[in-house]
């Protein structure tokens, strides 16, 4: 079953720690969003393999955008 990593807030993608095919554990730091002068980490919602990464560093994102998919 696939789970999406959603952007909790609007901002800029500052760091992407995951890549397609990489394994992640639940609560691993996957992506960091920069907004309001702060770097906000986004965590993997489940353990699994990264199926898709939809953003790259520097991208502007909106709240609830899909950032990546984990299977």
């Amino acid at each position, binding site marked *: 079953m696939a789970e999406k990593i959603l952007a*909790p*807030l609007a901002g800029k993608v500052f760091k992407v*720690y995951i890549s397609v095919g990489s394994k992640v*554990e639940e*609560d*691993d*730091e996957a992506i960091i969003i*920069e*907004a*309001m*002068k*702060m*770097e*906000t*980490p986004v965590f993997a919602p489940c353990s699994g393999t990264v199926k898709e990464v939809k953003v790259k560093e520097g991208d502007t994102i909106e*709240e609830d955008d899909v950032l990546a998919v984990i299977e």
Partner: protein
Amino acid sequence: MKPYFEKMTDFGRELKEGQIKRAQENVELVKKTENEIAAAVEKAKNAGFPTEKINARGQMTVWQRLEYLVDPGTWCPLHTLFNPMDNEIGTTNVFDGLAKISGKWAVVIGFDNKYIAGAWIPGQAENVLRATDLAKRLNVPLVWLVNCSGVKLDEQEKFYANRRGSGTTFFRHAELELSGIPVLAGIYGTNPAGGGYQGISPTILFAHKDCNIAVGGGGILSGMSPKGHFDKEGAEQLIEAAKKFKVEPPGSVKIHYDETGFFRYVFDEEKGVLDGLKEYMKDMPSYNPKFFRVAEPKEPKFSSDDIYRLIPMNQKQVYSFDDVLARLVDGSEQMEFRPDYGPEVYTGLCKVDGYLVGCIGNRQGFLAKGYPEYADYSGFGGKLYRQGLVKMNEFVTLCGRDRVPIIWFQDTSGIDVGDIAEKAELLGLGQSLIYSIQQTDVPMMLFVLRKGTAAAHYIMGGPTANRHNAFTLGTAATEIYVMHGETAAVATYSRRLVKEKETGKPLDPVIESMNKLAKQYHDNSRPIYCARYGLVDEVVPMNEMRKYMAAFAGAAYQNPRSICPQHQMLLPRSIKG
């Protein structure tokens, strides 16, 4: 109350592998800063004559005396780098801290006899007042190692007089005694004038055989007939008088033990004086710890070394405050107060060394969607909003009612601003928190984990709450300022930028001034600066934070002025619901 306190709720998470790896650079940055601070501390401790020179005179140094006096492993130094008047020597010529002597907590303070025989110098009076205030706040004995040659005469105008000048100490000693707090003094060396009052103002005096205390010393007596000028004849008279008083200074043991009896005890050896203090400390008023402990002391489940990875030096990075706290409190257990309300702050009961303490800290990072509920913008931890302020007010008030000491952890960028925030009453709620703190009358301590900023630094138990804040500690990541330097530069120069632009003048000089101001803010907010000017009372390594918490809790519960029976506490019931 076993069901409440013996086993509380577990919290905190193990560090993940990726987190450990990614934080390695942070560990190195923190340790680099801690090493710089340690080097500054070492320099302060070595101020004045070398130890060998003092020992060759048959004296111990202040550090050797302290080491012999306090129970091993209990010394929690404070104000080591405090030097608010920029003395060249780098200290205020006294050293103090919280320590156990013969198993009892005390505030311990000693003159540095390595530098001009422990004289009063600028900034020292403020340091001493911090020590006397600490003894008062914690209701624990004050133990002095007096060795004070009096005023450094060429700088007397900076500290002799004034409301908080050197003489204030003697009134504070009387105030402590009137509150039932004993002041013990081991007395060494020559203590004339101010030094004499340093010697006489404590409660019980333990004298070394070669010490003296006097209203005026040999130096004054030698020159007390001024002619309006100095000449050769006068100089010869002075030489004779000075020789006499060097051999036999006023106020020696012969006078103040044999004649006046001011000295309760006299000891032939330096260590004998310290043994006398130790013996007396055994009898100081204190409860057995079991009287107040709510559970057996336990170490946290997680290592305090993890804190080096958890608190980022990069102020933009967020972290889990709960994970930090879980590395500091007994068993990594807690009872959180109102977990579903005011998510930007943690409030809860924890145990330190088996004693109950209230903990309050700023959480970091993006808060839940729709929060703060009164605004159309997102909330971030570190900032304070309506619910957080209400929650802290309630928690502090209940801690006061239940007589629970409070440990604050600040990493705050301030209180939410703007008309929406004003409408949400944040200005009033901030001041309400100040009122809540003031009416508790329980001891508090504070860690400024990273940022201490704006009014939030005041209202979250900051040192300005000086009747309640026993002491404030910094870390390698601490920075304290009214606002971030770049924000200050914008506030100061934005109108000028507009004006220069409109009149066609070059912007570069203004930009240069902005960068200069931002750098000034940066430099004047670092941990060593904060310690030097008293914005914090000490900067402590991250893995020694718990040691200070245990000292604070142990001292606060040693002999409290008021008690709430555990079974009559309201806060744990309020949490349980």
